[in-house]
C-alpha cells in the first residue's frame, strides 16, 4: 500500500443526507462504497474535486432513492387508507360528528377569510395603488381635541406639487349627486369632478375613447362608466354625444370606462373636469373652505412618515394664523382605517379573523377529544399493532394520517357548503362578492386543511402511541388520568369561547338597538328626501302649497344637505361672538342651511328664543339660530340678542334649538349654527307613517303636475340613517352567526363525549338501577359532570368578554351599560343548550332496561 495514503473524510452533511436516503438498505455498505470511491478520487484528482464529486453523487441519488421510497410507502399508505375507512364506517356517529364539525368550521373560516380578502383588496386594482395617498386635515382645538376631515382646501394640491419634488402628481376631487342624462330622461348620478391628473393617477379601463388626462383638456368633457352609458344610450357608442348635467349644462362624452369594482371608495357614475366649476362661479384658489378631497401620488422611494413630517405645517405658509395641520393617508387605508387612525373597519377584520380561527380550533378540539376518548375502544388495535412491531413513529403516522383524511374530506365538503351559503353570507356582510376558485384560494383552503389536520391529529397520535401495549391490551375501559384532565380542559376552552361570543353578540345587538331606538332629537319616521333640481327650485312655492293640501303630508322643508350627511363647517379662526374672552375659542362649528319650515317639519324643539319665521322677515337675513352645544362651547348666558360671527357673516342670535343628532351616534353633538337660506339643495317631506304608499302616490302626482320634466326620485331618511351604522349592523350579523356556529360545534363535541361516556358506563347504570337507583338520579349523575365544565367555562369567558366589550363600546359617544344580566343570560344559555344536548341522551340511557344494559359488552 502506498505510504502517502491518508484517510480523507467525505463531506459530513452529504454523508448525513446519504444515510437519510438509504435508511434500511445496509446504510453501512452504501456509505462505505462511496467513501472508498472518494478516497481513490482524492488520490487521483485532489480533495476539492473529490468533494465536489461526492456531493454530486449524493444529490444525483435523490431522485432514484426518492422514487424507491415512494413505491415502498405506497403499500403502507394503502393499508392506512383501508383502516381509516373501516374506522369511519364502523363508528358512524363519531365520524359524522367529526366530519360535520370540521366541515362547518372550515366553511366558516373559508367564507370569513374570503370576505377579509375582499375588504383588504379595496382600491388595490389601481396600478399605482402603493404610491397614492389622500390628504387628511386635522383641526386642533386649544383644548387638545382634534377633529379630522378627509377634505382639504382647493389650492393645496397645486401648492404641494410645486413645493415638494417628492410629489409626482396631485389632483382634487369633489363628489356630487345630481340629476343627469339626455334630454328625455334624467337620473340622479354620482358625479366626481376631478383634475385631469386624477385620470393619470388612478387606473380606469377605457372601453371607448381614452380615459387619460388629455381627455379633460376641454372643461366641457365628461367620462361615463359602462353602466351609465348603457342606461342612457343603450348599446350605441356614446362617445362624442352630449350629456346634460343638472340645470341642463351640456357635456361632450370623451370616453367610456369599465364600471368601478364594488370594492373601491371611488363610487362614481361619471367624471367631469373640476375646471368646469369656474364657469359656475367657484373660486378654486381660495384657502377658506375645506371642500375637496385631494389625492397625491408620491415618488416610489419616498418615505411617507418623513414626508408627513415635512408637510405637517404647510398651511401656515398660506394662512399664518391657522392651527390646522395636514397629513397623507395611504389609499389602502381609506377604506380600512378611520381618520383618527385608531380603528375603523380594520378592527372588525381583525376580530373576525380571530373568530374564524377560534371556530376552527373548536372544530379541531372536537376531533381531538373524540379520538382520545375513543382510545380505549381502539386500544386493542393499537396494542396488537405495537406487539406486531409497529414503532411509535408508525403509529403517529397512522393517526395523523387519519386526521388528515378526515380533514381533507371536510375540506371538500366545505367547498360545497361555502358555495351554498355564499348568498346568505353576502346578505350578512352587506357585500356582494364571489368566492374566486383560483389556485390561490385552493392553496389557502389546503393550508386550512393541513393546519386542522395537524392540530387535531397530533395530540391523539402522540397520546395513543405513547401508551404501553400491556395497558392497551389488558385494560379496555379506564382512561389515563392526565388525558381525562386534558379533555376536560379542552371542553372548558370550547365553551369559554362560545360563551365569550354569546356575550359579544348580545352587547353588539343591544348597542345597535340603542343606536336605532335612541331619541335623535328630531322626527325621522316617514321622512323622504330628494335632490333639488333647477325646475323644482323654480316651482317650489307652488309645489309646497299643493303638497301641504294633502292631509297626510305633515311638512315640507328645504335644507342644504340630508340630515345625516356631513355638514359644512367653519374652523376656529373664523368664529367669534359677543363677550368672547381672549383664551376662548370654538374648535369647529357646523353650518346647516334651511328655510323657515325646518323646525316644524322635523319637530325640532326650541330651548330659547324662536326659530326663523316669515313674520319676522328682518331676522331671516341677520338672525342666527344656534344649537345647545354651541352655546355651551361659548360659555354664554342668555344668548338671545347677542352678536355672533362666522365665516364673513355677522348676525344676532335669535334662538337656540335643543340638540339634535345630525351625525352618527359615534360622536357627541357638536356646535352648530342653523342659517336661513344657505345653499338649499335638498327637500325633505314628512309623511304620516300610516298608509304611506297611498300618500306617496299622491305626492308623485303633484310632482308630475308641477315639475313634469324631473323624475320623482326619493329615499327614506331612515334607510340612510341605518347606513350610518352599517359596520355595527354587519358586525352584529356576523358575530351572531359565528357565535351560533361556535355553540353548535361545541355541542357536537359535547354530544360526542356524552355518547361515549354513557356508553362506557352502560353496565354501571344497569347495576345502579338493579340496586334501586331512580331514573332522575341517574340522569343527574350523567349531567352533573358536563354542567360543571360549562360553569367553569364561564369563569374564563366573563372577564375577557367584559374587557373586550368595554373596549368596543369606547367607539360610541352613546353606549349601553354593561349589565351583569348580559353575562348571566349568555352563561345560562350555553348551559341550557349543553344540558339539552346531554340531557336527551342521559334520559335515553336512564330509561334503558337494566337487563339490556347489563348484557352490554
Amino acid at each position, binding site marked *: 500500500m502506498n505510504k502517502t*495514503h491518508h*484517510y480523507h*473524510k*467525505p463531506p459530513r452533511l452529504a454523508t448525513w443526507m446519504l444515510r437519510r*436516503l*438509504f435508511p434500511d*438498505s*445496509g446504510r*453501512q*455498505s*452504501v*456509505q*462505505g*462504497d*462511496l*467513501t*472508498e*470511491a472518494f*478516497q481513490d478520487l482524492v488520490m487521483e484528482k485532489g480533495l476539492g474535486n473529490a468533494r465536489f464529486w461526492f456531493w454530486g*453523487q*449524493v444529490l*444525483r*441519488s*435523490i*431522485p*432514484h*432513492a426518492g*422514487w*424507491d421510497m415512494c413505491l415502498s410507502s405506497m403499500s403502507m399508505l394503502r393499508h392506512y387508507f383501508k383502516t381509516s375507512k373501516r374506522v369511519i364506517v364502523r363508528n358512524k356517529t363519531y365520524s359524522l360528528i367529526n366530519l360535520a364539525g370540521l366541515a362547518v368550521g372550515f366553511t366558516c373560516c373559508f367564507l370569513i377569510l374570503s370576505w377579509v380578502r375582499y375588504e383588504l383588496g379595496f382600491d388595490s386594482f389601481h396600478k399605482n395603488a402603493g404610491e397614492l395617498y389622500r390628504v387628511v386635515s386635522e383641526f386642533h382645538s386649544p383644548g387638545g381635541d382634534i377633529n379630522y376631515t378627509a377634505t382639504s382646501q382647493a389650492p393645496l394640491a397645486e401648492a404641494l406639487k410645486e413645493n415638494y419634488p417628492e410629489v409626482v402628481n396631485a389632483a382634487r376631487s369633489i363628489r356630487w349627486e345630481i340629476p343627469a342624462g339626455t334630454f328625455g330622461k334624467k337620473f340622479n348620478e354620482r358625479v366626481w369632478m376631478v383634475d385631469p391628473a386624477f385620470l393619470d393617477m388612478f387606473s380606469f379601463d377605457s372601453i371607448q375613447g381614452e380615459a387619460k388626462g388629455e381627455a379633460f383638456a376641454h372643461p366641457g368633457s365628461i367620462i361615463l362608466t359602462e353602466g351609465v352609458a348603457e342606461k342612457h344610450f343603450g348599446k350605441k357608442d356614446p362617445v362624442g354625444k352630449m350629456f346634460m348635467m343638472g340645470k341642463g349644462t351640456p357635456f361632450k362624452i370623451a370616453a367610456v370606462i369599465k364600471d368601478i369594482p364594488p370594492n373601491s371608495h371611488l363610487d362614481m357614475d361619471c367624471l367631469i373636469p373640476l375646471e368646469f366649476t369656474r364657469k359656475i362661479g367657484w373660486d378654486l384658489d381660495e384657502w377658506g373652505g375645506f371642500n375637496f378631497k385631494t389625492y397625491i401620488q408620491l415618488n416610489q422611494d419616498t418615505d411617507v412618515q418623513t414626508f408627513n413630517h415635512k408637510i405637517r405645517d404647510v398651511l401656515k405658509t398660506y394662512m399664518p394664523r391657522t392651527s390646522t395641520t395636514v397629513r397623507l393617508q395611504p389609499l389602502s387605508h381609506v377604506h380600512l382605517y378611520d381618520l383618527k387612525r385608531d380603528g375603523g373597519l380594520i378592527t372588525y377584520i381583525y376580530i373576525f379573523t380571530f373568530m374564524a380561527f377560534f371556530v376552527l380550533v373548536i372544530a379541531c378540539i372536537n376531533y381531538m377529544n373524540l379520538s382520545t376518548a375513543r382510545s380505549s375502544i381502539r386500544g386493542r388495535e393499537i396494542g396488537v399493532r405495537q406487539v406486531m412491531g409497529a414503532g411509535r413513529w408508525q403509529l403517529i403516522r397512522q393517526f395523523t394520517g387519519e386526521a388528515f383524511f378526515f380533514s381533507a374530506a371536510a375540506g371538500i365538503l366545505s367547498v360545497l357548503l361555502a358555495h351554498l351559503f355564499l348568498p346568505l353570507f353576502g346578505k350578512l356582510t352587506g357585500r356582494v362578492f364571489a368566492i374566486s376558485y383560483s389556485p390561490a384560494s385552493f392553496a389557502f383552503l389546503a393550508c386550512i386543511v393541513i393546519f386542522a389536520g395537524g392540530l387535531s391529529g397530533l395530540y391523539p397520535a402522540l397520546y395513543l402511541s405513547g401508551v404501553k401495549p400491556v395497558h392497551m391490551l389488558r385494560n379496555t375501559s379506564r382512561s389515563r388520568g392526565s388525558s381525562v384532565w386534558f379533555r376536560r380542559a379542552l371542553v372548558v376552552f370550547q365553551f369559554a369561547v362560545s360563551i365569550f361570543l354569546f356575550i359579544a353578540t348580545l352587547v353588539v345587538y343591544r348597542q345597535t338597538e340603542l343606536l336605532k331606538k335612541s331619541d335623535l332629537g328630531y322626527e325621522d319616521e316617514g321622512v323622504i328626501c330628494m335632490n333639488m333640481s333647477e325646475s323644482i327650485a323654480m316651482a317650489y312655492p307652488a309645489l309646497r302649497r299643493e303638497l301641504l293640501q294633502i292631509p297626510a303630508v305633515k311638512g315640507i322643508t328645504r335644507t342644504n344637505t340630508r340630515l345625516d350627511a356631513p355638514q359644512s363647517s367653519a374652523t376656529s379662526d373664523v368664529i367669534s361672538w359677543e363677550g368672547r374672552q381672549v383664551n376662548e375659542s370654538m374648535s369647529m362649528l357646523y353650518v346647516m342651511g334651511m328655510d323657515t319650515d325646518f323646525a316644524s317639519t322635523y319637530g325640532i324643539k326650541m330651548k330659547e328664543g324662536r326659530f326663523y319665521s316669515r313674520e319676522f322677515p328682518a331676522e331671516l337675513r341677520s338672525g342666527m339660530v344656534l344649537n345647545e352645544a354651541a352655546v355651551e362651547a361659548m360659555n354664554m348666558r342668555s344668548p338671545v340678542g347677542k352678536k355672533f360671527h362666522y365665516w364673513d357673516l355677522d348676525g344676532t342670535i335669535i334662538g337656540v334649538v335643543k340638540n339634535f343628532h345630525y351625525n352618527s351616534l359615534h360622536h357627541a353633538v357638536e356646535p352648530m349654527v342653523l342659517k336661513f337660506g344657505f345653499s338649499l339643495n335638498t327637500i325633505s317631506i314628512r309623511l304620516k307613517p300610516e298608509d304611506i304608499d297611498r300618500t306617496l302616490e299622491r305626492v308623485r302626482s303633484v310632482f308630475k303636475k308641477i315639475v313634469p320634466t324631473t323624475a320623482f326620485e326619493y329615499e327614506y331618511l331612515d334607510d340612510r340613517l341605518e347606513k350610518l351604522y352599517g359596520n355595527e349592523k354587519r358586525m352584529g350579523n356576523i358575530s351572531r352567526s359565528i357565535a351560533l356556529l361556535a355553540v353548535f360545534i361545541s355541542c357536537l363535541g359535547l354530544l360526542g363525549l356524552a355518547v361515549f361516556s354513557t356508553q362506557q358506563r352502560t353496565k354501571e347504570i344497569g347495576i345502579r338501577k338493579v340496586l334501586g337507583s331512580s331514573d332522575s338520579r341517574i340522569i343527574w349523575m350523567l349531567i352533573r359532570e358536563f354542567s360543571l365544565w360549562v360553569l367553569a367555562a364561564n369563569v374564563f369567558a366573563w372577564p375577557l368578554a367584559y374587557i373586550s366589550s368595554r373596549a368596543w363600546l369606547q367607539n360610541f359617544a352613546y353606549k349601553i351599560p354593561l349589565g351583569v344580566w348580559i353575562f348571566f343570560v349568555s352563561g345560562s344559555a350555553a348551559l341550557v343548550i349543553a344540558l339539552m344536548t346531554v340531557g336527551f341522551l342521559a334520559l335515553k340511557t336512564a330509561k334503558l332496561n337494566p337487563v339490556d344494559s347489563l348484557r352490554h359488552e
Partner: protein
Amino acid sequence: MIKKTKSKFISRTEEYILLAVWRLKDNAYAVTIREDLKTTTGKTWAFGALFVILNRLEKKGFLESRMSDPTPKRGGKSKRYYLLSSQGVRSLVEVKRVHNTVWAGTEDLPLMP
C-alpha cells in the same frame, strides 16, 4: 423482511448489473460493479442509481449479499459483497437463451453503421 416478487423478468439495466456481478465473482461490491459497468457500457453510473437497483434485485431474489469486515479506507464501514442466487443465474441463462434466439441470423449486421 424481504418480499419475493412474482416477476421473473428483468430490465436491461438489471441485466447489465447481474452480468457484472457474475463476471466479478468474489469481488462484486458497489465500487467494483460500478467500474465494471463503466468499461462494459461506457457510461458513468451514479452510485444512487446503482444502490437502488441492487436493493431491488436483492428483494426480488436475484442477488444474495454478505457483509465483509470494515476497512479503514472505507471510513470503518464494511463492504456488502453480492453474489448471484440460483434464481439470478437461471434468469441470466434465460435472458441469454432469448438473446441468442432473437439475434440469430443477424451475424451480417455491421459493427459500425
